[in-house]
């Protein structure tokens, strides 16, 4: 995995590189490590069963999707980044978290050569959202932290308000 470099200077070209998927939500583009994605599916072909949360304590999470004996919290990308409503057509199913993220579309797969630390002047939620910034084709893009879509605290909050739902969904799917 690419190590964050200081935002002061871009290091030279002898670094490890990282494959990323570039996706868009509204007018913004983001990069995310390809290694953190298990599947990329169209919302039309996702399959599985969608279960509505009894208590949607987080605005960005209203559903769970069950597929292949696993359940995932469905995180709205535009709600997560506090953007105006967009038209998600693609789902990123993450590998190391029970999270499926709704995004507008995948723009490209690319090779990230540098990961720059987010400048210290940024002090808000973006410090949770992003691993840092990168430069692809002379554009600066934020590199999303996959674990930032649903923090441990947020997941705990969902589980407390909807006890056993993720587990029940997985078990019922398994029994079918």
């Amino acid at each position, binding site marked *: 995995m690419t190590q964050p470099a200081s*935002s*002061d*200077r*871009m290091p030279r070209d002898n670094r490890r590189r990282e494959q990323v998927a570039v996706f868009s939500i509204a007018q*913004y583009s*983001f990069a995310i490590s390809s290694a953190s994605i298990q599947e990329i599916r169209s919302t039309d072909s996702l399959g599985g069963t969608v279960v509505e949360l009894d208590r949607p304590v987080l*605005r960005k999470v209203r559903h769970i999707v069950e597929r292949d004996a696993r359940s995932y919290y469905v995180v709205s990308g*535009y*709600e997560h*980044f*506090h*953007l*105006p*409503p967009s038209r998600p057509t693609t789902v990123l199913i993450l590998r190391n978290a029970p999270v499926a993220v709704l995004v507008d579309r995948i723009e490209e797969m690319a090779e990230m050569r540098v990961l*720059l630390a987010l*400048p*210290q*002047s*940024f*002090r*808000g*939620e*973006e410090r949770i*959202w992003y691993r840092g*910034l990168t*430069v692809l084709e*002379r*554009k*600066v*893009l*934020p590199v999303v932290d996959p674990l930032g879509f649903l923090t441990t605290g947020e997941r705990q909050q969902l589980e407390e308000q909807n006890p056993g739902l993720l587990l029940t969904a997985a078990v019922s799917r398994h029994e079918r």
Partner: protein
Amino acid sequence: MTAETSTLVPSFVVFHVGTRRVALSRDWVSELIASPLLFSFPHTTPLITGVVLRRGRIVPVLDLGPGVLGAPSPATRFFLVVERHLSNSSERCAIPVQGECELLAGIMLPSMRQEEFVTGYLELNEEQIDVLDLEKAIAAGVRSHEEPIHGTEALS
């Protein structure tokens, strides 16, 4: 940028934030840059309008308008790169400015203004130009954003 240099008196960079002409100690200022590409992405930090790439460095763009004018600055082609002194380190930031900047030497006189981010003033051709404390001007802008309205809330 015109220069009136003197080794005996301190120097200030005079510039416009929107319609207001203000000054910063030259010690804070690194350079003036024109027409950099401004890259923006979602975040929740007040005053930051995006970042620019400058000589391989990521430089956040901080608008002083909300603190100094009470409103965001108009779009611009010019940015003053300044050195912020944060808690444990320093960081370069770009401030959008309108029109030309001047470098001038002069004595700062104490200000009678109520605005806490004004540390004094300079006299230039019978005009009084307020000298800013950069961090206090930023803090004033942040306070004006204390109750942000996010895009989704505004539309719902």
